[in-house]
């Protein structure tokens, strides 16, 4: 078990009720993200243009850029939620222009800047829904909430929780599902120092287990502290 300096147990592989699996399957290539001249358009507007990015297992890449630079669209592309309109994109070995992209979705952990919790469900119920959908033991949802310091708020409705607590719950979901590819949009947003430690530990753990993490932010300094390298995105192009 690794603990943050505030004593929140972040990882508990041994003895955890959460199903622990080998993060990288045998058939997973070393290159987890391979974007080659990828563009994404919304109507006639190019949101991403000729993006090239290669991320290998063990890396944590910080992507920084101004508002409207295309950061969130890049993350949603990497999460297979937005299809490329041109170029070749391969995520966790799956081409995004083929149906195989659906198969890798459960291996991706995505925390957007807007929480995806259901406000009329408790934090535990929100995570239990994901656990049910993924075939994970429901107990893992409470376990994950404990690990992010939300054990006492597990039965609180999501809309009664602060934005920061909702973000923590999203990170608990990622802890529970143990993704190979971790995608974080503005990972510092609305988080206190303890929670930032938690995110840093989560990123480090994903990378060290052979996965990869992508962190996007408008603030280079913030993502640089967690990343193994940084790239800049401006007007939809990575430099």
């Amino acid at each position: 078990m690794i603990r943050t300096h505030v004593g929140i147990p972040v990882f508990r592989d041994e003895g955890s009720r959460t199903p622990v699996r080998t993060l990288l399957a045998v058939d997973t290539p070393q290159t987890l993200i391979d974007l080659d001249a990828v563009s994404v358009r919304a109507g006639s507007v190019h949101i991403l243009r000729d993006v090239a990015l290669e991320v290998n297992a063990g890396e944590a890449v910080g992507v920084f850029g101004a508002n409207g630079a295309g950061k969130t669209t890049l993350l949603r592309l990497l999460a297979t939620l937005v299809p490329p309109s041109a170029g070749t994109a391969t995520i966790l070995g799956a081409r995004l222009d083929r149906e195989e992209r659906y198969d890798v979705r459960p291996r991706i952990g995505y925390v957007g800047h807007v929480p995806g919790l259901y406000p009329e469900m408790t934090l535990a119920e929100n995570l239990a829904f994901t656990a049910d959908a993924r075939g994970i033991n429901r107990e893992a949802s409470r376990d994950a909430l404990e690990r992010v310091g939300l054990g006492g708020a597990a039965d609180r409705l999501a809309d009664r929780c602060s934005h920061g607590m909702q973000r923590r719950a999203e990170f608990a979901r990622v802890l529970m599902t143990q993704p190979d590819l971790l995608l974080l949009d503005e990972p510092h947003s609305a988080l206190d120092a303890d929670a930032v430690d938690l995110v840093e530990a989560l990123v480090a753990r994903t990378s060290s287990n052979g996965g990869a993490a992508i962190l996007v932010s408008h603030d280079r300094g913030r993502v640089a502290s967690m990343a193994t390298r940084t790239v800049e995105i401006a007007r939809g192009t990575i430099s």
Partner: protein
Amino acid sequence: MIGFGAQVAAIARRDLRRERRTGEVVWVTLPFGAIALLLVPLAIGTDAPMLQRIGPGLFWVVVMLFGVLISVRQTNAETTAQRDQVALTGLDPAAIYVGRAAASFVLLVVFQAALGVVTLVLYDVPVEGLVLLPVTFLVVGAGLALLGTLAAGIVSTGTNATALVPLLVAPLSIPLLIGATQALEALRLGRSSLTWVLMMIVTVLVLAIAGVLSARPLQETG
């Protein structure tokens, strides 16, 4: 990956839990439906024979209009962030469609039963044909749930798609409306209602097939 049935159950359980907390059907839609049924006798007066004659038809019109709203609302109350998280669970979109329709189906059966009692009280509808009523409730509930879920899937694909809902729902709900009214009328007159029930079942099957086949494309364009 869990089986199709477990995926359907996970989605249906989530939707019913959300409805239990918000109470939209019980505390908003159901009272409005009852008020709609109440307003007609107030408007046309207490002509008992007329009320008895038009009661069943009015009941089904109210069920169709409010029922589709229930189903569309139930399945369209998701943000992009919530939809993203559902997509990343890897659930089969067809299972999501069926699960949402299943939750709406439960709510619609309850909705019909409650409005049915209101109709019996306000319109003094004769009880002939009531034997078939539970079967009709189930078939109409399934049809409206599938139709509303499909319509909500289309709505979620983009801006201005909301305008398509009436255009989509109106023609597809007509077979259900005609089937429901005519099945009970046939029974009341001592005729076979099998044709009408079969027509509704065929409509339900067509909606189910259309919804399952379109689930993946609608999820990806949503």
